[in-house]
């Protein structure tokens, strides 16, 4: 592989690691560690394997057909089908973007002591300005590379000398040691945070923005496998630090501020600021992705010209779409809705709509018009079939579990 290609793969892997976490991943992992120590590590592992397959397929679809997932679903299933997943995705995007903005505001509250609502509008302006002036590459690479600070969670977990035997046992799927409703609610929330619809929509659009072609399929597989695989280590780090710092004291996660203690444990005062910076950068990167994703799915559903790499003048409707999306979601924080409650609610909502979004993938990834001879093999089809089955189960149990164990 040429040097340029190796650099490109390295960059892809690093941005996957830096960009892996978002507010949902942090909240659900910390809640899992605080409530059940290492018991739920296996859910993060299963979720990550699903993410790797979904990201690889989204990238392959775009690289070969030059069409995104949103394009393909509308073109193959028609507007009368596609209007439902896209409306559901709008609602979820609106809430998740609000929660991500909340994450950045909480980080600034931790750093400055000023209440998080006051930060909503400045944060929204910073997001909008970055999208308005930046290009897709700049946003993806810069923010995600800064996101490498989240490796602090991995370092924190190691510094706390985890009982590796218990950790290893946590990777073996097991039933609930206690409070089964809460156990399975967190498991569904972790999966909902990991297998979120934006993966398919955002990554396929990103591959088109980056101009990927069939020659990039190997890189696509490497970035998905290695990048996401290492990325999940960061989420496991959050879970393990919470298990070692919060669980022994019976501290359950009711507020983002409490999660700061997970890094204060191993690193003292340094840990406090490391957490604030990690939360802020992670959520800022996720804000950029969620806002752009709204622009992508509207433009691709209605066939507009779109592209973050284009200047705003060259894609007016696309830029207006993400501008309105940022403005609307910011209101959620200005009103002062608790970001953690909003996060967990949007994770449950995501779980309910997942089947509608993921099921068409099985058809599209076997369509020779789109994939030529790169259609799914039996392994990929088998995994997509499993993921679809999983999403149906999650959809059924998400709301009842939220009520029982939320």
């Amino acid at each position, binding site marked *: 592989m040429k040097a340029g290609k190796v650099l490109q793969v390295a960059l892809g892997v690093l941005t996957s690691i830096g960009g892996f976490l978002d507010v949902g991943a942090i909240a659900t992992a910390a809640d899992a560690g605080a409530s059940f120590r290492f018991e739920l590590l296996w859910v993060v592992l299963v979720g990550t394997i699903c993410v790797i397959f979904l990201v690889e397929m989204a990238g392959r679809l775009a690289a070969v057909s030059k069409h995104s997932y949103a394009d393909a679903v509308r073109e193959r299933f028609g507007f009368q089908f596609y209007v439902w997943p896209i409306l559901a995705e709008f609602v979820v995007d609106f809430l998740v973007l609000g929660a991500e903005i909340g994450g950045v505001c909480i980080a600034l509250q931790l750093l400055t002591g000023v209440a998080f609502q006051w930060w909503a509008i400045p944060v929204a302006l910073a997001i909008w300005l970055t999208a308005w002036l930046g290009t897709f590459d700049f946003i993806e690479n810069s923010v995600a590379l800064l996101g490498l600070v989240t490796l602090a969670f991995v370092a924190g977990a190691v510094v706390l000398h985890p009982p590796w035997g218990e950790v290893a046992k946590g990777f073996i799927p097991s039933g609930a040691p206690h409070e089964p409703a809460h156990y399975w609610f967190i498991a569904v929330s972790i999966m909902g945070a990991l297998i979120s619809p934006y993966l398919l929509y955002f990554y396929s659009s990103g591959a088109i923005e980056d101009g990927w072609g069939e020659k990039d399929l190997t890189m696509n597989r490497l970035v998905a496998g290695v990048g996401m695989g290492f990325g999940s280590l960061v989420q496991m780090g959050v879970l393990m630090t919470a298990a070692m710092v919060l669980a022994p004291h019976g501290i359950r996660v*009711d507020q983002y501020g409490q999660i700061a*203690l997970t890094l*204060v444990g191993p690193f003292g005062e340094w840990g406090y600021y490391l957490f604030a910076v990690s939360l802020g950068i992670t959520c800022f990167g996720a804000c950029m992705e969620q806002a752009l994703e709204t622009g992508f799915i509207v433009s691709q559903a209605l066939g507009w010209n779109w592209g973050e790499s284009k200047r705003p003048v060259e894609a007016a409707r696309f830029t207006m779409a993400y501008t309105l999306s940022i403005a609307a979601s910011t209101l959620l924080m200005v009103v002062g809705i608790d970001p953690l409650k909003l996060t967990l609610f949007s994770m449950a909502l995501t779980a309910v709509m997942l089947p509608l979004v993921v099921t068409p993938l099985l058809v599209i990834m076997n369509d020779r018009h789109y994939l030529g001879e790169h259609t799914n093999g039996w392994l990929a089809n088998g995994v997509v079939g499993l993921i679809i089955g999983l999403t149906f189960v999650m959809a059924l149990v998400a709301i009842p579990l939220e009520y029982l164990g939320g």
Partner: protein
Amino acid sequence: MVSWAATAEMVAQRWTAGDVPTAYAHNTLTKGAQEARRAAAKLGQAPAAPVAREAQARYAELAVRLARIDAVIADDDGRAAAGLAAGLPAIRLKLDRLQSGCQAR
């Protein structure tokens, strides 16, 4: 509610060790006191079972203590904060027993 008592305890300790800023301690303790008061008020409406009365008293005591820790932290009085925080585990144990007592019934 046991979680908030434990959180307050850890925050007070970390504050005295200089690991977390005062504003963070204030925000967390205020939130904890608020949750304790809410729990006490909720129990106030419940029928006057002895266990409920006992739990309500412990929540009220916890709310008062958290508010006092918050106040001494605002005055930057580390020793007073540590002293008050030292009383938290006792309240937490009582709450634990009451809670597991309720669940057992």
